[in-house]
Structures are given as C-alpha cells and as structure tokens.
C-alpha cells in the first residue's frame, strides 16, 4: 500500500478510536472492546476509496453496503460515519440517549449511513445474503460487506447464512470476522470454542483469508482480493486485539461492555495518541 494512503488510514483510525472513547464516556455505557478491535478495518473500508460510499448521495442505488452484524460495536460505525460526513459529529455525544439518532444498537431508520438494523447477533450476515441476492437480480455491480464477531459465530444462523451464500454463489458478498478472541463471559476458546474457524468457513464453500486485522497492507490485500473473486463468497478472518489502542483495555474481557470514566478516558485518549504506527 502506498505510504501516503497508509498514513491517512492510520490517522483516520486514530480519530475513529478517539471518537469511540469520547462517545462511550459521555454515554456512560456501551461496548469499547469490539469497537476498537475493528477500527482499522473500518478506516480502510470507508477512507481508502475501495468502496462506493458517498455521504452526499446516501441512497445511491449503486452504493456498496456495509452491514455491522456485530451491532453492539456500533460506536466504531457511528464514529466512522460521522468522520465520513454522514452526520454532524455533535451527534456522537448523544449516543444511547433518549431521542438520539444514535441508538444503543444500529437502527437503519434513525442513522444516516446505517444500512441495516442489527443488534441481535447472527442476523446481519443473513440480511447481507438478501442484499447480495437483490443486487444480483438487478445486475448491480456492487459489494456487500458484513462484519461479524468471532463470538457471534456461535449463532447457528451465521452458518445457515454461510450455507446459503455459497449455495447461491454470492461472489458479491464478503464477510469480515473480527476475531478478537474475547466475548462477554471470557475468551472465546473457553466460552464456546469456534476453532478451527477458517476451516469452518472453507468447508461451507467460502474462500478464506486470514490476516492481521491491524495491518493495513494485509487488510488492503485481502479486501482487494475478496472483491475480485466473483464466483463465491469470501470470508476474511481478521485477527485483532480486543480494545486495540488503549493499553488497559487490550485483551481484557471486562472492557467488552463497559464505558470508561473521565479519568480512564483521558488515559485512553493519551494511549491512542501515542499508538505506535507501523510503516
């Protein structure tokens, strides 16, 4: 990846992470861990130019669709959409408050840029299958990207959806699994082991890439490859660190669904600011 673009994406990821922390502190509740783990992927999806997403034309028939199936990680989506210009950043302070356009889990009718209402885990990939089928019926040359969690992969519906996507040869569908290895009750391997995860997706007929979900070169390579594969769906397993960028949140289960205090916020922002960037 060209170094200028990488720098830009790193800068965007930093802003997204800062906004996640700020909005969660203000809200007093919410999910920082799984938002921070997928922030680099979001930066790439919305700011690399790889997808057709334009806040000035949010109902463009030809737009690519990103569906956040792991809906609890909506702070990363809201921060990204605000940074992209779908709505004013002042809304971020209203997260989870009564009357806000930013609900505790994504609501497609309240938030500009949110493509699907999600929050009950396991449903987003199925919705994406429907979108991919609809796009194909209309000969729309667009991409549907579904973002799932590794804990979410315990939902049976994910595999119903996976089976149907390969049955219908949905080459316009990409699933990105944010494999941060943690869920509410502990490590995914202890709560409900999903391994071998890549083999599961392969056996369901998907092409699979396993990448470092914080390495922009690997994100870039895998997504470009995924978009070029047209005869079957592609799953990108993004190995990530839950809470990535905030030292005291990284790999700590308790930060799945807890908001930082004012004091913790300051430390978190400081950590994000000092996050060592790779060349």
């Amino acid at each position: 990846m060209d170094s200028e673009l990488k720098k830009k994406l790193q800068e965007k990821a930093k802003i997204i992470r800062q906004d996640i922390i700020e909005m969660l502190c203000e809200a007093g509740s919410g999910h920082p861990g799984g938002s921070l783990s997928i922030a680099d992927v979001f930066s790439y999806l919305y700011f690399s130019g790889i997808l057709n997403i334009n806040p000035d034309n949010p109902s463009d028939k030809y737009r690519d669709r990103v569906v956040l199936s792991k809906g609890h990680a909506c702070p990363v989506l809201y921060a990204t959409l605000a940074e992209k210009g779908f709505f004013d950043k002042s809304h971020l302070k209203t997260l989870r408050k009564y009357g806000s356009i930013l609900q505790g889990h994504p609501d497609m009718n309240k938030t500009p840029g949110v493509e699907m209402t999600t929050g009950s885990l396991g449903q987003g990939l199925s919705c994406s299958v429907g979108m991919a089928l609809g796009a194909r019926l209309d000969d729309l040359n667009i991409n549907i990207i579904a973002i799932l969690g590794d804990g979410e992969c315990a939902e049976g519906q994910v595999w119903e959806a996976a089976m149907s996507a390969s049955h219908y040869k949905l080459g316009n569908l990409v699933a990105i699994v944010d494999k941060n290895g943690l869920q509410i009750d502990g490590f995914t391997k202890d709560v409900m082991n999903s391994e071998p995860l890549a083999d599961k997706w392969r056996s369901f007929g998907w092409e699979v890439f396993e990448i470092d979900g914080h390495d922009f070169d690997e994100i870039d390579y895998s997504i470009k490859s995924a978009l070029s594969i047209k005869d079957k769906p592609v799953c990108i397993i993004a190995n990530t660190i839950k809470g990535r960028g905030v030292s005291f949140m990284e790999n700590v289960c308790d930060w799945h669904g807890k908001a930082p205090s004012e004091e913790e916020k300051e430390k978190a922002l400081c950590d994000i600011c000092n996050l060592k960037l790779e060349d």
Partner: protein
Amino acid sequence: MIKQDIKKILSSEDEKISTREAYGRKLAELGEIDKNIVVLDCDLSKSTRTAIFAKKFPERFFNFGLAEANMMSAAAGLATMGKIPFASTFGVFATKRACDQVSISIAYPRLNVKICATHTGISVGEDGATHQAIEDAAIMRSFPNMIVISPADGTETRKVIDEIYKYNGPCYIRLCRGNSPVLFNDNYEFKIGRGVKIMDGDKATLISAGFTTSITLEAAKTLEEEGIEVDMINMASIKPVDSEMIIESAKKTGLVITVEDHNVIGGLGSAVCEVLSEKYPVRVIRLGVQDKFGSSGSPAELIKAYGFDKDSIVKTVRENIPA
C-alpha cells in the same frame, strides 16, 4: 339476516379451495405485473403453494432449505434493495422458529416483507401439535409495525394479497391447509383494518376470522331459523382490528362471541376483548383453542373436539343470550 348490501358480494357458487392454494395462484399472477416481487420458501414450496410462482419465475424464487431464521433476515435484506419479498413456510416455523428474526430484521426496521404462513391452526389435522400454529397470531400481533390478516376464503385471500402488495410495510398473513367454502365473489373488497358485517341481528355478535367464518356463518343461519338473529362479522384484519365495527355491534347486542382456530390467548378473541374492555365493556366469550396444544385427527374431528364447530357455536349463543 344476511344484510341486503352484502348479498352482492356473497358467492352463489358451491365451490371449495384452500387459502394456501388461492395464495399460490395469486402470487404467480402478481409476479407477472411486478418484477420486484420475489418469493422465499424453506423447502415447503409444494405445501405453501409458492411452487406455482417458482415454476413460472425461477430466477425470482429462492429456496432457503430448512433454515427459517436465515430466510426471514434475508427477506429483510432483499426488501432494503427495493424488492417485495413474500416469505412462506408453515405458521409454526414462521413465527416461533424465526421469531427474533421477524421481530428484529423485519418488524423493527419496518421493512416491506410479506410473511405468508400456511398450515395455521389445529385444522392442519393429522400432522398433530408440532405442525399446528395456535399461537402465531398472538406472537405476530405483539410486534410493533406488524399487521396480521387471517382471510376467510379463497376470494378474500386474493384480495388480501392485492392489498398487502400495495401496502408498504411488514405483514403476517395466516393461511390454512384445508379446503374451505368460497364465501365471497369477486365484488368483495378487502381493506386493512376493516371488518365485514355479513348478517344483521340484535341478540348477539359473532366475530370470526379465517375459515372459521364459514362455520360461524352456518351457525348464524341455524340460529336465524330458530328465531335468534345475530350480528355476524368477518374480521380478517386481526391487527389493526376494526374497533368501530366491534363497538357499534356490541352496543346493539350486549354479547360478543369470537370464533378462531387459534389459542384464545392472544388472537382474534383477545383483540376483541382489548377493544371492548377499554371502550365499551360487554361480556365476551372466546371460542377457539382453550390454551392447550393441538393433536392429530381429522380437521372436522379436531374442530369439534376443541369446541368451535357449528354446533358448539350455536349452543354457546343459545345458552348465553338473555332469556
């Protein structure tokens, strides 16, 4: 007696058709006029009769196999792309197996998905309790944004499908397996939220939905022969229910009896009770499945055993009207 103005919408033919068959045929007709109509099924297309559409428009028919949860959420996804998905399976699977998907993927975002479930009620018959949806209307009625319609016969089914096709939002249509008499002719008009009063009387009000309307109508005619004239209302639109018509009739008769092939908890009977207890309290007797699971047996045997056959309705009216 049968209302004068109603006579012109009543069928004079002696024919029978199941509401699932009428649905399947109508869907295949609609498919011709709008290419945005897509049909989804879960390995039951021969039973739900979506196979008629599938044969005609294979490129717009999606079989999801035995995966109802996936089908419902995928239908939602198709709706976001401007498609008009009709999703069919048996009532038990559409509402219980895929309950959360219908609620969160479809009803909450108010997506334009038409859930047309067949094999509802104990009248499914021999398959027994596992395949008899007796709580489907209750579940669907409790979801905000969802409308619930239970057509009485083949004609009303066709009219309902026309109406929900024009309506932009989620719908649950309750269809049946067995053949039932065609009550209405093509002059019949269906409107969401409107009941149709078929007979006029002042001794009691009978309100029914689905194929039980044909049984209730027979009961009302028998009562008329005995000199007991009743108001008889077909209330296909269970949600929104026609409150105005229910209240007006209750004011006149003072006694309401509901008839449905569904648990008396949560369905048409409950909807009528909700209206009357808030707006005009009168006594309501709910005939239907009395909070127990279904059973194997022939539809006629079951309807009698569960107490909403013609004789049970007649007896209930006789015993409860003021002397």
